[in-house]
C-alpha cells in the first residue's frame, strides 16, 4: 500500500514545469519523463475524502479530495502527460513542454478539486497554460488562433465564475457536487463547463485552435481541456437531460465538418467534438452504466485520439509541415510504422471489436437501449458509422494510401515510435481485456462487451459504411471534394430532409459567420471613431470642456438631490 498523499498531485507537474527551462539534454529528458510518472504515483496515493484543506478568502478549500472518479481521470491525464512528453522530447520550442506540464497539472488539479473555487483556479490555469502551448508554435497564425482561443476560454471562465459565485451566495457552500439545473447560477456553471467541452454554439474554438499548435502541442491539447470538461460534467451534472440533445448535436457536428475538412489535424479535431458528444450524451442519460461508459470512453478516447494525432504529428514533422490531405498520400510504403499506428488508432476510434473504443462506447449505446431511448440509440449507431467514415477510414486513407503524393518520408525517431507504440498497445490491450479499466470505473461494472449481438451489430455497421466509402471513392477522387460521403450518411439514415437541414445549417453557419464578421468590422470601426486616439472619447480635450462636464454633473446631482 502506498502512503497516503496529502498534497495536490499536480504540484509534481508544476515543479517539473518550473525545472524544465533550466535544464538541457539528458537531465531534462529524465525530469520530463519522471514528473508525470511520479504524479501518477501520487494520484494513486490520494485517499478517499478530503486530503488537504486550505483557507482562502473566507472559505476553507478542499484542495485535494479523492474518490474513484478523480483517480480514474487523474490516471489517464498523467499517463497522457507521460506519453505526450515522450513524443515531444525532440520538440525544439523550450516553452511548449513546461506549458504542457502546467496544463496537465491544471487538469489533474481539477480532478482532485473538492470545492468549486479550487476547481475554478485550476480550470483557469489550464486556459492560460494551453494558450501558451499554442503560442509555442510561433508565427502569426498560431498567435491569432491562440487569441481567439483565449477569448473564448476567458469568456467561459467569467460565466463559470459568475455561476459559482451565485451558487455560493445561494447555498453558502463551495462544495463541488451534483447540481440541479434549476437556477440561473447552476445554468451558468453548466454553460461554463460546456464551453470547454466544445458544445454548440462554442464548438468552433477547438478545430480553430488545435491544428495551429505544433506537431507535438496538438497531442497535449487534444487530451485535457475537453476531457476535464467531461469530468466536471460527470461530477456536477450527471443525468441532466439537456445534455442528451447537446451531445447529439456535437456528435453530428463533428462528423459533418470532419467529412468536409481537408486538413488532417483539423479532421481529427472535429472528431474530438464528435467523441466528446458521445460522452456528453452518456452523462445526460445518467444511469450508472452510461456514466461508467462516459468515463471509460473519456479514458480510451484520450489514448486513441492522442495516438491518431501522434501519427499525424509524425507526418507533419517528417514532411516539414504538409497538413492537407490532398497533398499527402501513399506514405505507408516509407512510413510503415506510423501508418500502422494510425490505423490502430483509427480502428479504435471506430470502436472496432477488440480495440479500446469498442469496450467503452458500446456501454453508452447499451445504456441508451436499456433506457428505451430509441432515437438516441439510433443516433449513436448512425454516428458510429459516421465516425468510421471520417476518422476510421478517411484519415488513414488519405494520409497513408490513396494516391502517391511523391513524398518519401521516413518513420520518426525512436522516442516518438515508442510513445505511439505504448498507446497502440493500450488501445488493443484494453480492447482485448477491458477488466483493468472496468475495475477502476466509478461504479461497479457488470457489463459484458463481447456478446455476439454487440459484436455482430458493430461489425455490420462498420463493414457497410466501409463498403460505402470505397464505392464512393471514384467520385471523391475525381472531384477532390468530400461532400459525397456525408451525402451517403444522411441518405441512408434521415433521407433527404436531414441532408437538407445539414447543408442548410452548414451554409447558414458560413453566412452567419460572414455576416457577423462584417457587422463586427463595422462595429469596431464605429468604436474606433469614438474611442480611437482621435475619437471623441479619447482625444485630448480642452480644459474648458472638462469644466463644463463638472458643471453638468453638479447640476444633475443637485437636481436629483433637490
Amino acid at each position, binding site marked *: 500500500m502506498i502512503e497516503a498523499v496529502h498534497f495536490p498531485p499536480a504540484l509534481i507537474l508544476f515543479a517539473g514545469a518550473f525545472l524544465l527551462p533550466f535544464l538541457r539534454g539528458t537531465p531534462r529528458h529524465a525530469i520530463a519523463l519522471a514528473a508525470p510518472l511520479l504524479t501518477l504515483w501520487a494520484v494513486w496515493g490520494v485517499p478517499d475524502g478530503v486530503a488537504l484543506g486550505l483557507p*482562502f*478568502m*473566507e472559505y476553507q478549500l478542499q484542495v485535494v479530495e479523492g474518490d474513484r472518479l478523480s483517480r480514474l481521470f487523474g490516471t489517464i491525464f498523467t499517463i497522457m502527460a507521460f506519453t505526450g512528453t515522450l513524443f515531444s522530447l525532440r520538440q525544439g520550442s523550450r516553452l511548449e513542454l513546461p506549458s504542457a506540464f502546467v496544463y496537465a497539472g491544471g487538469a489533474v488539479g481539477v480532478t482532485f478539486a473538492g470545492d468549486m473555487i479550487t476547481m*475554478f*483556479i485550476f480550470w*483557469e*490555469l489550464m486556459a*492560460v497554460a494551453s494558450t501558451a502551448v499554442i*503560442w509555442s508554435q510561433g508565427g*502569426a497564425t498560431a*498567435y491569432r488562433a491562440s*487569441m481567439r482561443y*483565449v*477569448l473564448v476560454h*476567458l*469568456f467561459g471562465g*467569467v*460565466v463559470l*465564475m*459568475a455561476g459559482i*459565485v*451565485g451558487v*455560493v*451566495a445561494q447555498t453558502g457552500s463551495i462544495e463541488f457536487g451534483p447540481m440541479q439545473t434549476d437556477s*440561473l447560477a447552476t445554468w451558468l456553471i453548466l454553460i461554463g463547463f460546456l464551453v470547454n467541452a466544445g458544445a454548440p454554439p462554442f464548438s468552433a474554438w477547438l478545430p480553430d485552435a488545435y491544428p495551429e499548435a505544433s506537431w507535438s502541442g496538438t497531442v497535449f491539447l487534444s487530451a485535457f481541456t475537453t476531457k476535464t470538461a467531461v469530468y466536471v460534467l460527470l461530477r456536477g451534472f450527471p443525468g441532466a437531460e439537456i445534455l442528451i440533445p447537446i451531445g447529439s448535436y456535437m456528435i453530428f457536428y463533428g462528423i459533418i465538418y470532419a467529412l468536409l475538412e481537408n486538413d488532417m489535424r483539423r479532421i481529427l479535431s472535429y472528431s474530438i467534438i464528435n467523441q466528446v458528444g458521445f460522452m456528453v450524451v452518456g452523462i445526460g442519460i445518467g444511469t450508472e452504466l452510461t456514466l461508467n461508459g462516459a468515463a471509460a470512453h473519456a479514458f480510451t478516447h484520450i489514448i486513441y485520439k492522442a495516438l491518431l494525432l501522434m501519427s499525424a504529428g509524425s507526418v507533419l514533422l517528417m514532411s516539414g509541415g504538409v497538413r492537407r490531405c490532398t497533398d499527402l498520400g501513399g506514405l505507408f510504403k516509407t512510413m510503415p510504422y506510423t501508418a500502422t499506428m494510425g490505423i490502430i488508432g483509427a480502428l479504435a476510434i471506430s470502436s472496432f471489436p477488440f480495440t479500446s473504443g469498442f469496450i467503452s462506447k458500446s456501454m453508452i449505446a447499451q445504456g441508451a437501449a436499456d433506457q428505451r431511448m430509441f432515437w438516441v440509440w439510433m443516433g449513436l449507431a448512425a454516428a458510429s458509422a459516421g465516425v468510421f467514415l471520417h476518422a476510421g477510414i478517411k484519415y488513414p486513407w488519405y494520409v497513408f494510401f490513396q494516391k502517391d503524393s511523391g513524398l518519401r518520408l521516413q518513420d520518426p525517431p525512436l522516442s516518438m515510435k515508442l510513445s505511439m507504440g505504448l498507446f497502440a498497445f493500450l488501445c488493443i490491450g484494453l480492447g482485448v481485456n477491458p477488466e483493468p479499466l472496468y475495475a477502476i470505473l466509478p461504479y461497479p461494472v457488470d457489463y459484458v462487451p463481447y456478446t455476439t449481438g454487440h459484436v455482430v451489430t458493430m461489425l455490420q455497421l462498420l463493414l457497410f459504411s466501409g463498403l460505402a466509402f470505397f464505392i464512393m471513392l471514384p467520385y471523391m477522387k475525381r472531384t477532390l471534394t468530400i461532400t459525397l460521403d456525408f451525402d451517403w450518411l444522411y441518405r441512408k439514415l434521415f433521407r433527404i430532409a436531414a441532408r437538407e437541414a445539414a447543408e442548410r445549417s452548414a451554409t447558414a453557419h458560413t453566412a452567419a459567420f460572414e455576416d457577423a464578421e462584417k457587422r463586427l468590422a463595422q462595429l469596431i470601426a464605429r*468604436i*474606433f471613431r*469614438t*474611442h*480611437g*486616439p482621435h*475619437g471623441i*472619447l*479619447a482625444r*485630448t*480635450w480642452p*480644459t474648458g*470642456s*472638462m*469644466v463644463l*462636464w*463638472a458643471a453638468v*454633473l*453638479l447640476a*444633475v*446631482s*443637485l437636481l*436629483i*438631490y*433637490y
Partner: protein
Amino acid sequence: MNALLPHLPALQVVVPLVAAPLCLLAGRGGLAWIIAFLAAAAATVTAAILAYQTLHNGPISYEMGGWAPPWGIEYVVDTANAFILLLVAGIATVVLLFCYTSVGKEIRAGRQHLFYCMYTLCLTGLLGIAITGDAFNVFVFLEISSLSSYALIAMGGQRKALTAAFQYLVVGTIGATFFLIGVGLLYMMTGTLNMADLATRIPAIQDSRPVLAAFAFITVGLALKAALFPLHLWLPNAYAFAPSGVSAFIAATATKVSLYVLLRFTFTVFGADIAFRNLSLNLVLLLPAVIAMFAGSFSAIFQRDIKRMLAYSSVAQIGYITLAIALASHAGIQAAMIHIFNHGLMKAALFCAMGCIFYRIGSTRIDQIAGLGREMPWTFAAIAAAGLSLLGVPLTAGFISKWYLVQAALQSDMWWLVVLIAVSSMLALVYVWRLVEALYFKEPPPGRGTVAEAPLSMLLPTLLLAGANIYFGLDTRLPIEMTDSAATLLLRGQVW
C-alpha cells in the same frame, strides 16, 4: 520606542513632511533620495503598525497639539484608512526604490532633489488626506498632494507634460474648490469641521438646501479628483507624460485616496441612509461607473502609447470601484476597497515595467516596444503577471477583486451588472493581449539594436510589485480582514 507609539498617527504625516524640505536642502539627487526613501520607509512601518493596532484594538483617535476635538484637529485611524495608508506608503516606498535609477536618467541632475522634495510632499498630502478626521484638513492635504503632483507631472521629459500638468492643475483646482465649497456649506450649517461631529449634526438638518448642495459639491469635487467618467479627461495625459516613477506612484495612489474620501464622506459623514436612500447617490454613481467600464476599456484598446493605454484602463477600473461603492452594501464596500488595493498593485507594477522599457528605448509607443519581450524577459514576466492580475485570473490579486465584485453585485440581485462586468473584462483581455502581442510576437522595428534587460535597481522593485500581485492572490488575509472590518465600520454610520 514605546514613547513614540501613541504619536504614530502624527508621525505618519510629520515624518514625510519634514523630509520634504530636507530633500530640498540636500541639494543633490543622491542624498535627497536617501532622505526621501527613509521617510517613505518609516511611513510604511508606521502604517503597518497602525494597521495592526486598528485591526486588533479598534480605531485610534489622536488630538493634534493636544487640542480636544471638535475644536482641535483630530486624526482618526480605523481599519478603513489604515488600509489606505498602508497602500500609499508601501507603494511610495517601492516606487522610490525604482526611482533611483529611473529619475537619474529622466530628470536633469540639478533638479533631482526638487523631484524628491515634491515626491515626499505628495506622499505627505496623500497620507494626510487619509488619516485626518477633520473635513477642512482634508482640503489642506488635498492641495498639498495636488500642487506637488502638478509639479511632478510637469517634470516629464516631453513638452506636452507641461500642458498635461496645467490641465490637471485647472481641473484639480476646480475639484478641490468644489470640495471646499461643500465643506464650507457644511460648516455654515453646523459650525463644525470635525467629521465625527458633522456626522452627529447632519441628520437633524439633512433636508436643508445648503446641506444638499454641500453633498453635491463634495461628491462632484471628489469624482473629479478620482477621475470618474466623464470627469476623467485630465487623467490620460497626466499619466502618459509624467516621469515613469511619478506615473507609477500617482496611478496607484492618488485617485484611490480620493475614492477613500468619497467613501468616508458618503458613509461616515453623511451616512449611508442619507446618501443612498434619500439622495440616491447610487444613481449618480452607477451610470458613470458603467460607462467608464466600457468607454475606458474601448479607449484603452485603441491607444498607441502604452502609458496612455494603462491610463484609460485605470478609468475603467475606477469604474469598477465606483460601481462597487454605488451598491452601498457591506459586500460592495469591501469589493471597492479590495479593488482599490489590488488595482494599486497592478498599475504600480505595470507603470514601473513601462518605466523599465522607457529607460532602455526612450519610448512606450506600441510600435517601438515590439519584440522587447524576448530581450527583456524579466520585465516581460512582470508585465505578464500584472496583466494576468488585471484580467482577474485566479491566483492573482485581480481574481480576488473580481470575485468580491461579482459577489457584491449578486447580493444586490443585479445579474445585469454581472453580465456587464463579464463583458468588460473581455475588453481588458483585448488590451492586455495587445501589449503582450507587441512585446512577444511582433518583430522589432528596423534600426533598433539589441536592448539589454533593465538595470537591477529598477527591475527588482518592478518584480516586487508584480510578485505582490501574485502574493495577494494567494494569501488574502490582510486585505480581506482589513476591508471586512472597514466595511462594517463604514456602514455602521456612527463615527469611529
